[in-house]
Structures are given as C-alpha cells and as structure tokens.
C-alpha cells in the first residue's frame, strides 16, 4: 500500500508538476528539500543539546589549548578561574594541594633553614672573633663615639662588600618590577629610587650623547656604589656597600639573562602590573652577595677557644656561686626560724659569710644548723650576743634551771604566771613563790595547784587517823598517844595550808564507845572522848579551822563482833573534814 504524502506522485509528461495541484507541490518539495530539511533539523537539535556541545568542545579543547599556548591572552584568561578554583579547593580541603606541592616545599624549607643557620653561625663566629681583642675595644669606643651599634661598626670595619639592594627595573618606563634587600639594609622608597635611577641613566646617556648600547653602568655615592646591568627590556641595579669584585658584574649579567629568559613575554607586554615578577625574587636574591675580611688564622682559632673557656669557666663559677648562695640563704632562713636566735646582720666579707645576732643561752647552737645547709664552720663566721628570750619554752626552761622542781612537779607558764602541778614540799613551794618573780618573763608563781594537792593529802591523812581509848574511860589506849600526835600534826598542817590558800575548814571530832553498858552512859562517854582529843589539838592556835566535838555513843560501831579486839576498835575517836569545807576566807560558810 502506498501513501501520497510519503511517496511523490508520478510526474506529468513534461516533467513539471501541475501548477494547480498543492499535493503535487508538497510532494515535489519533499523530494527536493526533504534531506536538507532533515539535516538542518538534526543540526538544530545538536546545537540545542548542551551535552552534544560539551562533547564537541571537549574533543577539540586540548588541541586548541596546545595551539594557543604561546598566546599571552590565554594565560590572562585562564588565570582568574584557575586562581578561584585553587582557592576554593584549598578552602574545601587543603590536604590534596599540600600533598601535591610537598616535594617542592620540603626541599625549599630545608634550604631556607640551612641558609639561616649558616648565616647565624657566621654571625656568631664574627661576634666571637671580635668580642675579645684590643681592636674590639677600639671599635666599641668608636661605636659609643659615633652613636652606632657595635655590630654596625664591626660590619663597617670587616666588610669587604655587601650587596644591600637589588632592583629589577623596566627599562622603558623606569617602573619597578621587583626589589630585594639584604637583612638590616636601609631602604628608601624602592619605586622612587627605581624611577630616579632610570632618570639618571637617561640623563647621563642624553647629556653625553652616547649610543643606546653605551649607558651608565655604575656610579658611587660615599660608601655606596650602584652597578647597573642593562638588558633589552629590563635593568638590574645593585646597591653595593664596599668594593665588590669585578666578577660580580658577571653575576648581574647572568641574572639579567635569566630574567629575560624566564620573563620575556611579561617584560614585552608590561603595562604596569608587576605581579608576574614576584617569581623573579629568587634570581635577584641570588645577587645578594657579601664578603667579610677574615682575621689572622692563629688568632681566629685561639680567640674562640679562649672565649669558650672563659664562658665555661664563668658558667661553672656561676653554678658554684649560685649553689653556695642557695646554701647560705637556706642557713639564714633556718637561723631566722630557730627560736631563741635573732639575726641582726648578714653578709659576705673576704670570701666568708658573716652573720651576727642575739642568742638565748638555752637556744640551739647556730653551728649545729650549718650541717643541715651543707655548710661548714669554716664557711661562716658567727657573732652571737646573749639575750634572754621571753618565749614560753625558754621561760619555763629557765625557771626549771633556777627553781629545780622536785621530781613529779611540772612547771607551766600562762600569761607570765608560772605554775606547778604535782607534789612539792612546802619549803620548795615557798622558795618558788619567792624566786619566781625574779625570773625574766615571770611575774609571779601560782602555787594553788600544789597546795590543793597537799590539802587533799592532809585531809586524807586526818580522816585516816583513829585514836583508841581504854574501856569505859577517856584514857587513851596503848597506841593512842602516837595516834593523837599524828592527828595533831596533820591538823596543824591543815591549818597552815588553809592559811596559805586563804581558806577555812570545819573539822568534826566524833567520839565512839563499844556496845557494853547502856546508851545513857555511852553517849556522854563518847562526847568526853571527843573533848579529850579536841583539847589535844589546841584549837585556839588554829584560826582557820573550826573544830566541833561530838559523840554518837555505840551507835556507829566500827566492828560488830563481841570479841575484845572488836570492842577495842569501837572505843575510838575519828575526825572528819566537813563536806563543803575549805571555803574561801570570808565566805558565808565560815
């Protein structure tokens, strides 16, 4: 089956389509223009398809780049996007770029460090060489006289030459392309200097009407000279202090040649932007030479050794001095902390430490503190004047040495009052009361504790005595006299102690009988026995004691047996110190 729209109709006999048949015209057009229209449609689709465009461009891009690689416009066009791409990459992750440039950066850093170290060593050598000598002294005087630093004076005297600055100047415009300088070199405005150098060259060339090849190559200004090495598009100018060797000119020529070789295109198309010439710095830095005068060989070897020896000796001396000073400081601190020692002055004279001050005889000997600070008696001369320290420890010790308290008696000091505890004889107490105020740091002696202890003893002694009587009488039993004398002595001691303490006491004398006989006769007998003892105690001579006699008959037997021995023990008189007694003198209890 055929279709008229697809297959063209058969042409008429004259070979031309019928003029009035549109279908025929359409068919004819399809025959004539169909392939072209299809091709146009295909091309249009391809041009509108970005993917196809990218594929086509990628196929020819490498070749295109190769063909225009020498065109500076390409470098200028690519520079901004490449810079942005690198910046973005570094910001996102700096590691890939760091890894990529590592093989370059590592050696460069090592080279820079090595160069710095070499410069430092050279500088130290020069400093050592010129630190100890008559010449160095004169240079120091010159430095002081001229206001320059010693280093500058040394530099001026030892410098053969130094390239202080190197300029790379665009020859046609006189604009500065790059500039480097030596460390510590003084630099004016490099752009202005570059322009003026160009003007001076032009001036010289025009004034003397020389040819283009004959230009100003050098000029001198005081200690400085300027060497100029021209190239076709750029000029290198080196500012030199001192006298550079003639072959340095060769260095400048090499540098100019390298600059033109590496930067030929940027020089030719220079329009004022010198950024491209940052990469020329290494070439210019290679022109920063310097050379110093070397000293006499033997001296140059001897002086460092001598200087090193002096430095080592000074270091050892310093360490020893520091250690000795530390020991001395430690000793002084120990002296100041020691009780009974007062340091008034200290110092060092004729190689020996000296210390003077006050010392309590009871304080520790300062010499014994030396060993703790690793010092010997030969190291320190001490002058100590005696004095009496008023610290508690020293006052108590001093009182012990003076009063010699009996064994068991302990001295103590509180608010300048010396006190004692324990049992001491009355005579010692009396001496202590008398002598204690004479001891420095003691205002009085407080014997209260001692007397209380004695009082308790006497009370126990009084209450422990039992005076026995014969049967049915007030006659003392066989041992009754001795007991009574003992009792009387104890009561007299009680009177004395009460007087010493300013107190009073009440004694109750209680008479007893055995159980024989009736109560009516025993009670008076017991009272009579108490009176008998009272008389023996002589109460009139005891103003601080109140003695009350009384009897209880047979009502309070000591023993309850019927044997004579039991009864004898019941025929007795006992003395009791009343509870609540020993009140202060004048109190209501009296």
């Amino acid at each position: 089956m055929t279709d008229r729209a697809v297959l063209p109709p058969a042409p008429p006999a004259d070979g031309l389509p019928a003029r009035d048949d549109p279908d025929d015209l359409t068919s004819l057009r399809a025959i004539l223009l169909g392939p072209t229209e299809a091709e146009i449609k295909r091309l249009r689709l391809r041009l509108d398809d970005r993917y196809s465009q990218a594929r086509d461009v990628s196929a020819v891009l490498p070749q295109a780049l190769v063909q225009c690689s020498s065109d500076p416009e390409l470098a200028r066009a690519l520079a901004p996007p490449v810079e942005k791409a690198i910046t973005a990459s570094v910001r996102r992750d700096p590691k890939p770029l760091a890894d990529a440039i590592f093989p370059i950066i590592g050696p460069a850093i090592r080279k820079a460090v090595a160069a710095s170290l070499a410069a430092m060593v050279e500088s130290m050598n020069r400093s050592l060489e010129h630190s100890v000598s008559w010449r160095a002294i004169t240079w120091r005087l010159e430095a002081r006289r001229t206001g320059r630093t010693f280093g500058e004076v040394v530099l001026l005297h030892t410098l053969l030459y130094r390239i202080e600055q190197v300029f790379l100047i665009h020859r046609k415009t006189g604009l500065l392309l790059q500039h480097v300088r030596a460390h510590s070199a003084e630099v004016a405005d490099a752009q202005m200097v570059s322009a003026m150098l160009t003007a001076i060259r032009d001036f010289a060339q025009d004034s003397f009407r020389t040819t283009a090849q004959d230009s100003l190559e050098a000029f001198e200004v005081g200690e400085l000279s300027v060497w100029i090495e021209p190239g076709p598009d750029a000029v290198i100018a080196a500012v030199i202090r001192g006298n550079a060797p003639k072959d340095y000119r060769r260095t400048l020529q090499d540098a100019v040649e390298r600059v033109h070789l590496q930067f030929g295109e940027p020089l030719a198309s220079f329009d004022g932007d010198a950024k491209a010439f940052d990469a020329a710095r290494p070439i210019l830095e290679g022109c920063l030479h310097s050379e110093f005068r070397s000293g006499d060989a033997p001296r140059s070897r001897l002086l460092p050794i001598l200087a090193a020896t002096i430095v080592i000796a000074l270091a050892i001396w310093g360490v020893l001095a520091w250690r000795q000073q530390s020991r001395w400081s430690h000793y002084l601190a120990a002296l100041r902390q020691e009780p009974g020692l007062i340091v008034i002055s200290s110092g060092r004279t004729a190689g020996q430490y000296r210390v003077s001050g006050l010392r309590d005889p009871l304080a520790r000997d300062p010499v014994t503190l030396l060993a703790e600070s690793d010092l010997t008696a030969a190291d320190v001369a001490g002058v100590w004047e005696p004095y009496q320290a008023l610290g508690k420890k020293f006052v108590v010790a001093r009182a012990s040495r003076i009063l010699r308290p009996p064994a068991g008696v302990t001295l103590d000091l509180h608010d300048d009052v010396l006190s004692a505890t324990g049992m001491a004889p009355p005579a010692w107490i009396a001496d202590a009361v008398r002598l204690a105020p004479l001891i420095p740091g003691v205002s009085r002696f407080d014997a209260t504790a001692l007397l209380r202890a004695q009082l308790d003893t006497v009370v126990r002694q009084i209450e422990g005595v039992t005076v026995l009587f014969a049967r049915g009488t007030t006659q003392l039993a066989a041992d009754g006299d001795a007991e009574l004398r003992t009792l009387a002595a104890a009561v007299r001691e009680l009177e004395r102690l009460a007087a010493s303490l300013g107190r009073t006491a009440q004694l109750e004398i209680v008479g007893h009988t055995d159980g024989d006989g009736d109560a009516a006769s025993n009670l008076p007998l017991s009272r009579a026995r108490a009176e008998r003892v009272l008389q023996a105690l002589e109460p009139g001579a005891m103003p601080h004691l109140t003695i009350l006699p009384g009897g209880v008959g047979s009502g309070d037997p000591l023993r309850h047996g019927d044997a004579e021995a039991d009864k004898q023990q019941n025929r007795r008189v006992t003395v009791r110190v009343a509870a609540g007694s020993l009140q202060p003198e004048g109190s209501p209890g009296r």
Partner: protein
Amino acid sequence: MIQKKICMLGSFAVGKTSLVARFVSSIFSEKYLTTVGVKIDKKTLAMDGKDVTLMLWDIYGQDDFQTVQQSYLRGASGYLLVIDGTRRATLETAHTLHKMAQEVAGAVPFLVVLNKADLAPQWEIDDKGLWKLAEHGAAVVRTSAKTGEGVEETFAKLTRAMIGS
C-alpha cells in the same frame, strides 16, 4: 598593584611643580629639576577597586623646548600638557611638546591643563586657541595650583583614561 608613569610637560613656570605639590607630598628636593632635569614623585590612587601607583615625572620646563630630555618621556602611560592661561606663548610650546610626546611615548592618553584658573581675568588664551588643541583630540581641564581647583580631578581623569576604566 598597577604602576603608571605620567609626565608633566609644559613651559617654564606654567605651574607643573605646583600642581604635583598640590597632589602629593614630595620627598625629593626640587633641586633635582635644575640638576637632573626631572623630579619624580609618587601617588597611589584607588581607582575602581584597584590601587594604581602614579609615578609622576615632573620634567623641567624651559621655553626652549629643545632642551627637554626626550628620554624622560619614554615609557610614559600618559602625560599632562600644562599651559599658563596668562601666557599665550605657553600654548604654542604645548603644541610642540605634544608632538614630541607623541613621537616618543606614542598615542597615550593626555590632558591639556589650563592652569592658573585663579587668574582667569588675566588670561591671554581664548577659546580659539583651545579649539586648536581640541582638534587633536585633547581634552582640556582648568586647574589652579594655588587654590587646588581641578587638581585631584585632573589626575583622576588621566588615570582613568590610562587604565581604560
């Protein structure tokens, strides 16, 4: 940073040095003018986000223009032709200097600076004279180094022309 060399051209005493002095603080002495024949100054302008350093070559001017060091014009990115409005002769000299500059520096941007605007009533130069310059494509600006009128604008205009912004 971009650097550009600008030459100041004009007869003696037209005010070139005064215009530069209005624009920058010089560090070199004016004695360079009479010794080397040029005094160089520097001024950095911020122009459309870019720093442009202008190296100003103030070339010693004598009425006898033959003595001008032509080599100083070499490599200039632009120049100012300074005319003293009160002296007609300086206009003629400017014509000659302009030709010399074109020969040495090429077709670089330049401005005709009609200086001493503060003395306008005493001017000897009329519009006809200026038209002659305008025929050569010169833009004319009026300045007064004495009052500062138009000085900054003149340098900015020339700089803009040099960097093509």
